């Protein structure tokens, strides 16, 4: 028995049983609007890469869902069910420093040569008292400043949906955590974010600056 819990753009997320354990089935369904060849390629490539990177992230001490089974035939990953609210919906009032932890996790990923690719606040789940990072569907391996900075830029974009004061506070916390997670050479990456923004179409000036 499986039940659809989220129809994402990338994949359907189903909740079901895998050998008596509640588990998440991430199924990359065919996208009929794409050319079949491109669709097949993207699906199997992304499924395999996602599974590999989840394992690597775990090996490097980043909390992400545990892998149970990968089936390339139907582009399915079966993994741990992480139940909890999305960081997007959680208030971080008090001294929980959730955005600092988020930064720390992303920093660790980057240090291990993994770029998340979609580090939105929807992809961080508060599971009990720990933060779990989900969805390595767009992740890839890289050790370049540019790729790391694009990841940070995406975080910044998501956070800037908030009002300016909140944005500044959250982003500052995030960077604090990131610096700890990544280590000493993080300043160069953070500096590159501004360059990326300027390179964007039409001079950007987000509220944070």
């Amino acid at each position: 028995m499986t039940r659809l819990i989220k129809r994402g753009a990338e994949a359907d997320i189903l909740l079901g049983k895998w050998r008596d354990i509640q588990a998440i089935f991430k199924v990359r369904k065919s996208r009929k609007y794409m050319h079949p060849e491109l669709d097949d390629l993207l699906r199997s490539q992304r499924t395999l890469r996602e599974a590999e990177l989840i394992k690597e992230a775990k090996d490097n001490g980043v909390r992400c869902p545990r892998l149970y089974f990968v089936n390339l035939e139907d582009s399915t990953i079966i993994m741990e069910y992480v139940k909890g609210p999305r960081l997007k919906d959680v208030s971080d009032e008090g001294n929980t420093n959730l955005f600092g932890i988020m930064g720390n996790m992303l920093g660790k990923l980057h240090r291990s040569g993994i770029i998340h690719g979609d580090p939105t606040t929807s992809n961080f789940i508060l599971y009990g008292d720990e933060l779990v990072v989900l969805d390595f569907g767009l992740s890839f391996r890289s050790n370049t400043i540019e790729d790391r900075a694009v990841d940070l830029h995406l975080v910044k974009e998501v956070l800037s949906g908030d009002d300016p004061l909140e944005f500044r506070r959250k982003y500052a916390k995030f960077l604090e955590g990131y610096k700890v997670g990544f280590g000493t050479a993080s300043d160069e990456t953070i500096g590159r974010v501004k360059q990326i923004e300027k390179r964007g179409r039409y001079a950007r000036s987000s509220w944070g600056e």
Partner: protein
Amino acid sequence: MKAWVHKQKINLIVSRVAIGHTLATLALGIESTAHTFGASVMSSSGKILSDVREVYRGPEGSGIHPREASRHHSEVAPGVLGRSLREAKVKVSDLGLVAYSAGPGLGPCLRVGAVVARSISEYYSKPIVPVHHAIGHIELGCLLTGARDPVCLLISGGHTAILAEKSGRWRFFGETLDITIGQLLDQFGRFLGFGSPCGPRIEELANRGKKYIRMPYTVKGNDLSFSGILTFSKNLTKSERVEDVAYSLQETAFAMLCEATERALAFTEKKELLVTGGVAANGRLGAMLDEVCTRQGVELKVTPQRYAGDCGTQIAWAGLVAKKSVTPENAFVRQSWRLDQVEIA
């Protein structure tokens, strides 16, 4: 210059004229961002009274030359303006406001529209409203399709962005990191020797393509990069049929757009997708977006083709919606003006 609009004295417009039995404001909208010089009269009730435009066309194989385009605009401006007023059957004195496209766009072209708008504003003492060109696309799209709170896919030569309104501004939920989808089609078309805009010609070629060739597929988070496809396609024409290259280019670039759009729909959980901008005319992309909307349970709203491209109407309507006028000496143009810097009502 930053956030210059807000520094100006903001006057709310109250001048209204009687049309029939209802009170409505009439606006003249002037568009001159790129290849089109357009003038349109619109009423605040949402009625389009006239829409006149002249499009600059460069020689085959070349794009828009800013100087030549601005020369074209200044030559056609008086005629377009006159026809627009005559077709609407109004006099300048009936107008409640003059709106002009203040950016982003080609400087020399923008200035033509601004000069026309300032002259009318100054001579007839009419309020003048600077309008962000892309906001014009979106606002007119919302009016004509009845979209209320959509995710907006803006695809043209100047923009490729996925937007949604949040806290009084249009926010980016994805955009191009380099060239726009319109530029991709145009630059590849020009490489093949066509004249801009090349979209329809590429589509025609692509319809005759059969073989799919893998191309660089670049989606970073929800941002897109098309420059790799352009270089790749140009090189590919040496060894493959142009039809197949055009076909693969469309399939790849549109798949990227659709994927990013679908993700934005899933993320924002909005129920409408508004598609606007010149590239909205592409049939293949339309079919693909239709499928995206079915998958996400979202209503697809496409701006009617006549008003999806650049026109004075989009400027007139955005001017009526914004109603923030400036003094003529402060009616500047901005070649680079980001959409998310504009406060919307």
